C-alpha cells in the first residue's frame, strides 16, 4: 500500500457523484423498466473511466471507482454503500418483515440494536428530523430485506464487472494504485433475520459470504476498503445509551467477524473506513473516538480512515496523543467533509494534516475525506472539495518536507 514517503498523498472515502446518465440508468433498473444490458454496461464502464481520470487530474493519488457499480438511482442517496449488498447476497427476501420493525430496549450487559426511527439523536431532535425543511436528508430509505435461507455470495458477476471497469480505467489514466470499497459484515448484517438462530450466526454468515468479494478485490491487485460505520454509529442505535464497556463488547463481536472474513488476506492490501453515519443531523450522540479507537485498531487492516473534518469530531486529533497508532500502520483522517457545502480552504486542510502528521509522523498520514461525497453534496461541491484536498496536501507537504 502506498504511503506518504516524500509528500502527503491523497485519497477519499469512496462514493463520488454519479453522472446524470448513470443515475437515470440505475433508476430505470430500480423501477423495473426494460433496460438494454449492453448499453447499461457501456454507460457504467465509461463513467468509471471518466471518474478515475478526473480524480487523477484533480490530484488524488489513490483514486477509487466512485462506487459506481453500487447502484444509485438518485442524486441524493446516502445508502448505496451498503444496500448494494442486498443484490449480491442470496438467502434474502426483499418482502420479508425487514430489519427495524419495532423499537428494542437494551439493558446492562445486553446491547441490541433498535430501529432507525428510535435512534437516540433522532429522538432527542425529533422535531428537527421530522421537519422536511430541516435539511437532514438521507435520500430514499427502502426497507431492508430479511434473511430466510442460508446467506451466500451471488455477486460474482457484479464484482467481476466492477474490477474490470476499474482496472481498465486505472490503466487508461496511468494510475498505479486504486481502492475499492466493500461493506463489512457488521453493516451488512443489519437486515431482518428469520433463518439464523442468533445475530452472531447471521453476522458470521455475512462474513463468510462477503469474504468472496474481499478476496476478489485483493486478488485483482486493488486495495480493499472495508466500510463499517456500524462499528461507530451503532452506538446511536442502542437505546438507552449503553455503557462503553458493553458497547465495546458488542462491537468486538463485529470486529472478530470481520477479521474472520479477511483471514489470510494480506493486511497491507486492506484499509478500513469508520464513520458516525453521514446524514446531516446534529450527531450529538456520536460515541467519542477515544471510546472506540481500541476496537477500530483491533481490525486487521493496514490503514484506518475516519471522520475528522466535521465539527463533531475535528477535536479528536488529540486522541492520537494518547493512543498509539501501531508503528506499521497508516491513517486516513478526513480533512474535508460532506457535513457542509462550504468548501474547505486549502490552508485549513493543511493545518488539519499537519496536526496529525506532527503526532503520528508525516509518512503515516494519507489525506482523505470524512465520508464519501457522492450522493451527499452537489457534484460541483464534491469536486471542489477534492481539489481543496489535493491543494491542502501540497501545502502541508511543503511544510513537512522543506
Amino acid at each position, binding site marked *: 500500500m502506498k504511503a506518504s514517503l516524500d509528500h502527503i498523498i491523497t485519497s477519499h472515502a469512496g462514493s463520488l457523484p454519479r453522472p446524470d446518465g448513470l443515475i437515470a440508468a440505475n433508476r430505470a433498473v430500480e423501477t423495473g423498466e426494460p433496460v438494454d444490458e449492453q448499453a447499461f454496461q457501456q454507460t457504467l464502464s465509461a463513467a468509471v473511466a471518466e471518474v478515475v481520470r478526473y480524480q487523477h487530474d484533480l490530484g488524488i493519488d489513490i483514486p477509487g471507482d466512485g462506487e459506481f457499480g453500487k447502484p444509485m438511482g438518485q442524486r441524493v442517496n446516502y445508502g448505496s454503500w451498503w444496500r448494494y449488498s442486498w443484490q449480491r447476497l442470496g438467502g434474502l427476501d426483499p418482502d420479508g418483515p425487514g430489519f427495524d420493525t419495532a423499537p428494542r430496549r437494551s439493558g446492562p450487559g445486553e446491547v441490541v440494536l433498535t430501529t432507525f426511527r428510535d435512534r437516540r439523536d433522532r429522538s432527542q431532535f425529533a422535531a428537527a428530523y421530522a421537519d422536511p425543511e430541516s435539511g437532514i436528508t438521507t435520500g430514499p430509505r427502502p426497507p431492508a430485506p430479511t434473511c430466510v435461507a442460508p446467506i451466500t455470495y451471488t455477486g460474482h458477476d457484479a464484482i467481476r464487472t466492477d474490477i474490470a471497469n476499474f482496472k481498465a480505467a486505472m490503466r487508461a489514466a496511468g494510475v498505479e494504485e486504486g481502492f475499492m470499497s466493500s461493506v463489512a459484515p457488521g453493516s451488512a448484517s443489519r437486515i431482518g433475520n428469520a433463518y439464523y438462530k442468533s445475530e452472531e450466526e447471521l453476522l458470521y454468515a455475512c462474513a463468510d459470504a462477503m469474504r468472496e468479494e474481499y478476496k476478489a478485490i485483493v486478488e485483482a491487485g486493488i486495495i480493499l476498503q472495508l466500510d463499517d460505520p456500524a462499528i461507530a454509529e451503532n452506538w446511536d442505535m442502542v437505546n438507552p445509551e449503553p455503557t462503553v464497556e458493553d458497547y465495546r463488547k458488542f462491537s468486538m463481536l463485529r470486529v472478530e467477524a470481520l477479521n474472520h472474513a479477511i483471514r489470510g488476506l494480506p493486511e497491507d492490501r486492506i484499509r478500513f473506513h469508520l464513520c458516525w453515519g453521514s446524514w446531516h443531523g446534529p450527531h450529538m450522540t456520536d460515541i467519542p473516538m477515544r471510546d472506540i479507537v481500541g476496537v477500530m485498531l483491533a481490525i486487521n487492516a493496514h490503514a484506518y480512515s475516519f471522520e475528522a473534518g466535521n465539527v463533531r469530531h475535528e477535536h479528536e486529533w488529540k486522541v492520537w496523543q494518547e493512543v498509539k497508532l501501531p508503528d506499521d500502520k497508516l491513517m486516513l483522517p478526513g480533512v474535508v467533509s460532506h*457535513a457542509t457545502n462550504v468548501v474547505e480552504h486549502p490552508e485549513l486542510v493543511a493545518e488539519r494534516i499537519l496536526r496529525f502528521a506532527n503526532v503520528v509522523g508525516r509518512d503515516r498520514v494519507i489525506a482523505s475525506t470524512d465520508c464519501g461525497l457522492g450522493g451527499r453534496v452537489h457534484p460541483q461541491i464534491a469536486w471542489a472539495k477534492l481539489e481543496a484536498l489535493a491543494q491542502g496536501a501540497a501545502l502541508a507537504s511543503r511544510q513537512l518536507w522543506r
Partner: protein
Amino acid sequence: MLYSTDRILTTHAGSLPRPPDLRDLVLAKANGTPYDPAALDSRLRSAVAEVVRRQAECGIDCVNDGELSKTNFTDYVRWRIAGYETRPSSGARRLSITARDETKFAGYFEANPRRWSLGPPTMPVCVGELRYVGQADLARDLDNFKAALAGVNVAEAFLPANTPGTIEHWMLNEHYQDDEAFVFAIADTMHEEYQAIVDSGFLLQIDDPDLPDGWNCLPDITLPEYRNYAAMRVDALNHALRGIPKDKVRLHVCWGSHHGPHHDDIPLKDIIDLIFRVDAGSFSIEASNPCHEHEWRVFEEVKLPEGATLIPGVVGHFTDFIEHPDLVAERLVRYARLVGRENVLAGTDCGLGTRVGHPSICWAKFEALAEGARRATKILWGRAC
C-alpha cells in the same frame, strides 16, 4: 462592552428562531396581507421575553432580542426609511452575495436556488431625500427588549442594526449624484437608529456583512479596487456612528451566510485593517466554517486595536452538526493565546436562528458554545467557573 475578565464570556451574532405563529404575523405585515396588529404586538412582546430567557438558560452572557420583529437582518430597514418607491422585480437583489460563487458553481446554484429573503419581491428605488421614519417600530423593539430583560440575569444586552453598505445591496439610487452621496445619505438616515439604541443603554451591534461580502457581489473587481470600494463604505459607516463612544459599538462581519461553496471569499488578511478602521470597540468575525477557520493565524501578525475585544465565531450556521464543546474550547484557546484571554468572547459565525435546519439545532449549538467557553476557561485560568 464586556471583557472576559475572569472567564470566557459568550454571545452570538443576532438572529434567533422565530415561533411559527409570530413568523406568520411578521410576514403578513411585510407582504401587505391582512393581519391583526394587536395580535402581532402582543405575540412579539411575549416571544422576545421567551427568547431572552432561553438565551440566558443556554448560558449566553450578552443577549439580544433575536431580531424577532424583523423579516431579516437587512430588509427590515425598508419599513424604517422613506425617500424610495417600490417597483416590481424578480425578487433578486441589486447586488448578489453569491455572484462570485455562481461563476464557478452554476450547476450547484441551479439545483439549489436560494430562498430569497422573506418579504415582497419588489425593488426599492431611492427617488428623493432619504429620511428615518422607523421611530415607532424602533421604540417598540427597545421597549419589548427592556421588558424582556427585567426578568433575567445577564451580563449585557445588545441590539443589531444594519449598515449603509448592506442596505445598498437592495436599493437602487435615482436621486443622489453618485454612490458616495447615496451611501452617506443612508448613513445619515441610520444614525438616528444607532443613536437611539445606544441612548437606551444597549450595546449597538452593527451588522456589516457587506465589508467582506461586497467582494462576492462584484465578481470582476480587483483587490485594490475592492479596498477602495470598501473603504468608502467604512467611512460612511463611521459617519453614521459619529458621536457614539466606541465601547458602545460592536461590529459584526461575515461573508454572507448562504450555504453555498464560499470558494472565493475574500481572505480576512486582505481586509482586517479596514475592519479595524470602523469606530467600534469589539469585533465579531466569522471564524469557524471551513473556508475561514484557518484565519486565526491572521492574529499572529495583526494586533487588536487598543482596548478592543474579539468575538470569533466558534460555532457556525454552515452545518447542522453540533460543535463538540472540546472543539469550541480548542478554538477559543487559540485566540486567547494570541490576543489575550480577557479580550476574547465566544460568538457565532452568523445569526443561527433562521440559518440552521431547525430551532432545536440553534439552541443545542448555544449550549455547546457555553460549555465550550467553560472548558476554555478551565484551560486558560486553570480552574472551573
